[in-house]
């Protein structure tokens, strides 16, 4: 087991998440893509902790990533609720008012 191999797995998770975030139309599915991206970031951060710097500071970085995941989830659900109330839909294509 090497750092590079674990990071490649993390990159695969991140890339699958990018595909989902870009391609999905339903807000909840877009959120799932973002979650998968953060899943890859968690794995990469843990790999860096184990293979490079096994210090408590590296764990703090992980806590920040988990906090970011919490924020993404809360705001995503709030936006989904708002979209459903105002447009009676949960599709991103129904919220293109700010498109340039």
């Amino acid at each position, binding site marked *: 087991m090497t750092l590079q191999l674990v990071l490649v797995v993390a990159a695969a998770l991140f890339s*699958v998440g990018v595909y989902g975030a870009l391609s999905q139309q339903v807000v909840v599915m877009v959120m799932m893509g973002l979650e998968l991206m953060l*899943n890859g970031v968690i*794995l990469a951060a843990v790999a860096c902790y184990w293979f490079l710097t*096994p210090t408590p500071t590296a*764990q703090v970085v992980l806590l920040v990533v988990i906090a970011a995941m919490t924020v993404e989830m809360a705001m995503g659900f709030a936006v989904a*609720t708002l979209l459903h109330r105002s447009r009676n839909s949960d599709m991103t294509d129904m919220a293109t008012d700010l498109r340039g």
Partner: protein
Amino acid sequence: MSIGIAGTVVFWVLAVIAVLAGAAVFWVDSMARATYALAVSFVAVGIQVLLLGLSYIGVITVLMMIMEMAIMAVYMIMFMGMNPALMPMSMVHGKRTAVATATGLFLALTAGILLAPWPARSGDPVPDPTAALGEVLMGSKMLVMIVVSAVLLATVIAALVLALPRGRYDRFGDDLRRRPPTDPQPGGVGR
């Protein structure tokens, strides 16, 4: 410090499960199944974190994601109904662009990972990483937790502002000049 041969085998089995379950999120034909697939992917990564000695981070990752998937299931049923959440569906746009972007990103990341000169590990993990994390959070890294606290508070307020159906813009209109206000949910003292 090593996780042993058995630990390594389990780690790679979990890695394969995590990636396949992650891909299944956008491959299965219903949102409910996609939720289960994402939960499996997260639990696999959480167990990998546990294998690498970070018991606290691993446990909160698994617990948080299980709770989040439960909330996602509630949202799906709430917005789509029970049957549509289980019905086959494919709601995608720009699929080719997304596939090309994700593939290009994976290749670029892999090239960077394999070509970068990674340094050697500095030191060994402490015997009790959870206690060490607690001490550092209450000491030199307290500013991180203070900033995270403020961000989480702002998130709570922003989420409420977005989700509440009876905000000032709902009542007074976009220019806040509507008189009398139209309340989606009438109520309050004297009304």
